[in-house]
């Protein structure tokens, strides 16, 4: 596709439910990032993939958060046993090669945990 896409765009979950958020990066982009953006804040780094390898997951806030990119393209961010503090917009971004290249962002998934 022409840009980074994310689905769903909006997700409402009851506390305790598991959710899966999908990111389709730009075709051929090696680097993929996940960020969490709380209301009125800047994006916070969660994790980074280079192809299928998760090279950095230091930003994942707890072991309830898990990300994968098994074939080096589509990525899924999974949150288990969601809690209210998980409510945020989850942004995915990809870049062509090196992580320091321009990142192209998706529209985000707005997660609301009730």
């Amino acid at each position: 596709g022409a840009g980074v896409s994310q689905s769903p765009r909006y997700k409402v979950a009851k506390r305790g439910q598991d959710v899966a958020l999908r990111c389709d990066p730009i075709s051929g982009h090696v680097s993929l990032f996940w960020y969490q953006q709380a209301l009125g804040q800047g994006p916070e780094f969660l994790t980074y993939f280079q192809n299928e390898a998760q090279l950095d997951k230091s930003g994942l806030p707890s072991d309830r958060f898990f990300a994968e990119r098994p074939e080096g393209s589509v990525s899924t961010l999974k949150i288990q046993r969601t809690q209210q503090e998980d409510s945020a917009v989850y942004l995915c971004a990809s870049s062509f090669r090196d992580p320091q290249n321009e990142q192209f962002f998706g529209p985000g998934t707005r997660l609301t945990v009730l």
Partner: protein
Amino acid sequence: AQTVTQSQPEMSVQEAETVTLSCTYDTSESDYYLFWYKQPPSRQMILVIRQEAYKQQNATENRFSVNFQKAAKSFSLKISDSQLGDAAMYFCAIGGGNQFYFGTGTSLTVIP
């Protein structure tokens, strides 16, 4: 560890005038990059300008330019001839290694 500080939560500028958005950062990385991203209301984040820390020359992109002061760890964005379409949240960011850190953003209003 890396941190980014944007001390101006909100700024406004008259159309066609010039505005400067401030950003300071801290990093232990010797090789890093600095960025300004723009996030219009309900729209996707897009790159405004990028600066390699090892370059002394300030980056410019049309009406957008930076004042990079490495010793002071300062990276401000100057927008010249402001246009209504420049209204957005502006985020300063630093990338080093595999991690990126964003500031809390500055909301820019352009007054017609």
